[in-house]
C-alpha cells in the first residue's frame, strides 16, 4: 500500500486505550439506538410519549448528536496522532457513496422544501450536497474521511430531532401522490435506524484503528446488527402473534379432573383433565365456546395426504434422474419443468384442482382434492432437494458398492438413499412449511363447512369402509368438504362471518386462529427437524 503511515503498526497490542473504550461505547450507543428505532417502527414505543423521563424524540435526537460528536472526535483523535491507528490514504469509493446518499437526500429535500426551490432546485441541491459529502469522504485520509461526513450527518439529524425542527407531529405532504405523506412516525424511526447504522459503522472502523482491520470491524458490526435485526424481526412477529392470540386461545380454559371432553383410548373411556375449548370444539350453535378443531384436523390431514403423495413420487423421480437417466436433453427438460412448477403461483394449482380434480371426485369440494393439489405443489421441491441430496452423496460409496458386486438398485436402496435422507427430509420440511399455510388452493378445492351449524371434524381414520365394487375400500370422509386453518383465518378476516353470539371477542378469535396456524406449522417443522437430526446422527458418529 502506498502512502506513509504516520503511526507505526504494532505487532502486539497493548492494553485497551481510552480511544478503544470510547469507540466501543459508541458502538454500544449505536446498537441501543438501533433497537430503539426498531421498537419505534413497530409501535412498541411511541414518539409522543416519554422514555426514561425524557421525551422520546428528544432522547433519540440527543443520543444521535452525542454519537455523531463521538465519531468526529474519534476521527480527529486519530488524525492528530492522539490515538494509534493505521488508516489508509483514502476511505474509498464505497464509503464515499455511502456518505453521499443520505447527504444528497438531505440536501435535495432541504433545497426543494425548506428553501422552496422546487423539484429542479431539489435535484441541484442533492447533487451539490452529495458531491461535497463524497469529496469530503474520499479525498482526505481515511480516518477523517470516514468519520467526518458521517459524524456531521449524525449531529445534524440529532439536532434536528432534539430541537423539535422535526417533531412528533411533523408531516410532509408529497404533492405527486394523493393521500401520500411522510409522517414523523415513519421518518423519525427510519432516519434514526439508518443514521445509527452509519454511526455504528464509523465507530467500529475507529475501534479497529482504520485501515484493513478497521474495515473488518466495520463490516462485522454492520453484518451483526443486520443479522440481529432479522432474528429480532422474527421474534417480534412470533411474540406479537402469541401475545395477541393467547387470550382468544384460552377462552373458557379449565384445568381439573373431568373438565375435558371424553375420549376413548385403547377402549378405555377417559375424560381429559384439561379443557381448551378453542382447540377442542368446532363451531356449533350449542357450544359454550366456539373452537377451530375442524380446521386443525383439516390442516393436519391435508399435510399428511400431500406428503404421502409427493414424497414417493418425488424421491422416485429424483432417483431416476440422478442414477438412471443419462445427463442430456431429457434431464435438462425435466429440470426446467420442475423449477417452473415450483415457481407457479399457488392459485394456479388451485385452479388446476378446481377444474380437474373436483369433477372427478363427486363434483364438490373435498379433502381428497385438497390433498392432491397440495401434493402436487409439494412435489417439485421434493424432487429438487432429493436430487441435490443424492448428487451430494459421494461417488466413492457407489464405487465401493459396485466393487463388491452389489447391483445398482441395491446400492441405491442401501447406501445412496439412506445417505441422502437428511437432505430429503429438509426438502419435505421446507415444502410442508409452504403448503400448510397456502390459502388459495384450499379455497378452490376443499374449503367449506366451517360455519355450517353442526359441522363435524372430519374423521378420516374411522371412515374407512369396505365396498362391494372395486376398489373395495372407500372413505367418504375424504370426499367431504372441510376446513383448514389458513382458509379459516381468511374467512374470519375477510368475511367477518358471523360467529354467533357465543364468541365474545371476534378479534381475539382471529388472532387465536392465527396463533394455532403458526403453532401447527412450527410443530411440523419441529417433527421434521427431529427426524432429520435422527438420520444425520445415524450417518455420522454414534
Amino acid at each position, binding site marked *: 500500500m502506498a502512502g506513509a503511515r504516520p503511526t507505526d503498526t504494532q505487532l502486539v497490542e497493548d492494553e485497551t486505550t481510552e480511544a478503544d473504550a470510547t469507540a466501543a461505547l459508541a458502538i454500544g450507543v449505536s446498537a441501543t439506538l438501533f433497537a430503539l428505532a426498531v421498537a419505534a417502527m413497530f409501535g412498541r414505543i411511541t414518539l409522543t410519549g416519554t422514555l426514561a423521563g425524557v421525551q422520546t424524540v428528544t432522547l433519540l435526537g440527543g443520543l444521535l448528536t452525542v454519537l455523531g460528536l463521538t465519531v468526529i472526535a474519534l476521527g480527529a483523535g486519530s488524525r492528530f496522532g492522539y490515538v494509534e491507528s493505521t488508516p489508509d490514504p483514502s476511505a474509498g469509493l464505497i464509503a464515499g457513496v455511502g456518505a453521499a446518499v443520505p447527504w444528497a437526500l438531505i440536501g435535495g429535500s432541504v433545497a426543494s422544501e425548506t428553501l422552496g426551490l422546487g423539484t429542479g432546485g431539489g435535484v441541484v441541491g442533492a447533487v451539490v450536497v452529495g458531491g461535497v459529502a463524497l469529496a469530503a469522504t474520499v479525498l482526505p485520509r481515511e480516518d477523517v474521511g470516514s468519520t467526518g461526513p458521517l459524524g456531521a450527518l449524525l449531529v445534524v439529524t440529532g439536532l434536528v430531532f432534539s430541537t423539535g425542527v422535526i417533531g412528533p407531529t411533523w408531516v410532509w405532504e408529497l404533492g405527486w401522490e394523493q393521500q401520500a405523506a411522510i409522517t414523523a412516525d415513519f421518518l423519525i424511526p427510519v432516519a434514526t435506524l439508518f443514521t445509527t447504522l452509519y454511526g455504528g459503522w464509523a465507530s467500529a472502523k475507529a475501534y479497529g484503528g482504520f485501515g484493513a482491520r478497521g474495515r473488518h470491524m466495520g463490516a462485522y458490526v454492520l453484518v451483526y446488527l443486520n443479522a440481529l435485526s432479522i432474528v429480532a424481526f422474527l421474534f417480534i412477529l412470533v411474540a406479537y402473534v402469541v401475545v395477541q392470540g393467547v387470550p382468544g386461545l384460552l377462552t373458557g380454559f379449565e384445568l381439573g379432573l373431568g373438565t375435558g371432553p371424553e375420549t376413548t383410548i385403547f377402549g378405555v373411556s377417559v375424560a381429559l383433565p384439561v379443557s381448551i375449548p378453542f382447540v377442542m370444539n368446532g363451531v356449533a350453535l350449542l357450544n359454550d365456546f366456539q373452537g377451530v378443531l375442524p380446521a386443525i384436523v383439516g390442516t393436519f390431514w391435508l399435510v399428511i395426504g400431500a406428503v404421502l403423495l409427493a414424497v414417493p413420487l418425488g424421491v422416485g423421480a429424483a432417483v431416476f434422474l440422478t442414477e438412471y437417466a*443419462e445427463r442430456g436433453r431429457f434431464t435438462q427438460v425435466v429440470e426446467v419443468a420442475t423449477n417452473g412448477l415450483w415457481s407457479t403461483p399457488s392459485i394456479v394449482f388451485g385452479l388446476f384442482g378446481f377444474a380437474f380434480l373436483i369433477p372427478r371426485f363427486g363434483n364438490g369440494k373435498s379433502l381428497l382434492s385438497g390433498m392432491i393439489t397440495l401434493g402436487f405443489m409439494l412435489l417439485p421441491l421434493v424432487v429438487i432437494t432429493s436430487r441435490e441430496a443424492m448428487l451430494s452423496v*459421494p461417488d*466413492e*460409496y457407489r*464405487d*465401493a*458398492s*459396485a*466393487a*463388491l*458386486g*452389489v*447391483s445398482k438398485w*441395491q446400492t441405491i436402496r*442401501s*447406501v445412496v438413499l*439412506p*445417505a441422502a435422507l437428511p437432505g430429503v427430509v429438509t426438502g419435505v420440511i421446507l415444502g410442508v412449511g409452504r403448503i400448510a399455510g397456502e390459502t388459495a388452493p384450499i379455497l378452490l378445492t376443499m374449503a367449506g363447512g366451517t360455519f355450517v351449524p353442526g359441522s363435524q371434524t372430519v374423521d378420516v381414520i374411522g371412515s374407512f369402509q369396505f365396498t362391494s365394487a372395486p376398489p373395495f375400500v372407500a372413505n367418504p370422509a375424504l370426499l367431504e368438504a372441510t376446513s383448514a386453518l389458513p382458509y379459516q383465518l381468511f374467512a374470519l378476516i375477510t368475511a367477518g362471518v358471523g360467529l354467533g353470539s357465543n364468541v365474545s371477542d371476534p378479534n381475539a378469535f382471529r388472532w387465536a386462529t392465527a396463533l394455532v396456524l403458526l403453532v401447527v406449522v412450527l410443530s411440523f417443522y419441529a417433527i421434521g427437524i427431529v427426524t432429520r437430526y435422527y438420520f444425520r446422527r*445415524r*450417518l*455420522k*458418529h*454414534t
Partner: protein
Amino acid sequence: MSENQNPQTNQRTVTTTAEQPRTTTAGETDERTRDAWTAYDFDGDAKMTVEDLDVYYGDDHALKGVSMEIPERSVTALIGPSGCGKSTYLRCLNRMNDRIPSARIDGSVRFDGQEIYQDGVNLVELRKRVGMVFQSPNPFPKSIRENIAYGPQKHGDLDTGLLARLLNRSDAAERDELVERCLRDAALWDEVHDRLDDNALGLSGGQQQRLCIARCLSVDPEIILMDEPASALDPIATAKIEDLIADLAEEYTVVIVTHNMQQAARISDQTAVFLTGGELVEYGDTDRVFEDPHSERVEDYITGKFG
C-alpha cells in the same frame, strides 16, 4: 543371457542377448525388445492372463497393447509415473471401467482361463471373486458390523432382516462370525472388537482402510486389486497395510498399484513397470527389476532421473 564373473571384483554381471536397449529416436522401445522384457517366466499357475489389452477413453489411447500374466498367491506391483495407465489397467481386471461411458476396451482378459470380456459374464460374480480396495478409504456411513456384512447380505448369503428375525431364521450368528473373521484377517479385530456398532467414519484413516480391506474379504474373493491403498495414510498406517498385504498374499492373489517405488520394492514378488503413454515396458522379479532392469527407461525412472 550370459553370466560373467569378474575375477577382480567378484561381481556378477548379466547381459541379455539384446545387448543395448533398442530405442528409436522418438524414445519408444521396439516391440520385439519390449516383448522380451515383459515376458515373465514363473513357476505355478497364472491367475489372470491379459493379452493385448487396449483401452481408449474417447480419443485418448490410455493403454497400448498390454500383455501380462499374473501368478497366483503372490503380490504383483504395478508402478510407473502419473497418468501412465496403471490404474486404468487395474480397473480393467474387474471390469470397473465399464462404469465409465467413454471407455472402450479391446483385447482379452482371462481369469482362471475364462474370458471376462465376453457376453454372458455375470458381473456380480466376477466382482465377488475379484475384489477391489480404493485409494481413499471409503467405508459406508454405517456401523463397522454393517459395513462388513453389507456384501454378503446384498448377495443373499446372509439374512438378518426383520422378517428373518421374526421367523427365527436370522443369520446373526454367521454374520458375527464373518465379521470377526474378516476383521482378524485384516489385522483390525484387536482395535475395534469392542465397538463394532460404532459408525465406521469415526475410525482413523489407517483403520478405515483396513476396514475396507476387511469388507473386500467378506465376499471371499480370489484376487484382491489395490489401487494405491496406502497413499492417503501416514507411515505407521502404511507399514501396517504393507504387513497385511504380505500376509494376504499367502492366500489371495494381490495386484497393487503404487506410485511409491520403495513400497513396491518392499512388498511385491514381481513388478510391472508402465511408462507414460500406457505402455508396459518391463515385468519381472522384483529384485531383478530394482537391481538390474533391462530397459534404460525403466532404470531412469527407478533412479529418479525422470517421472
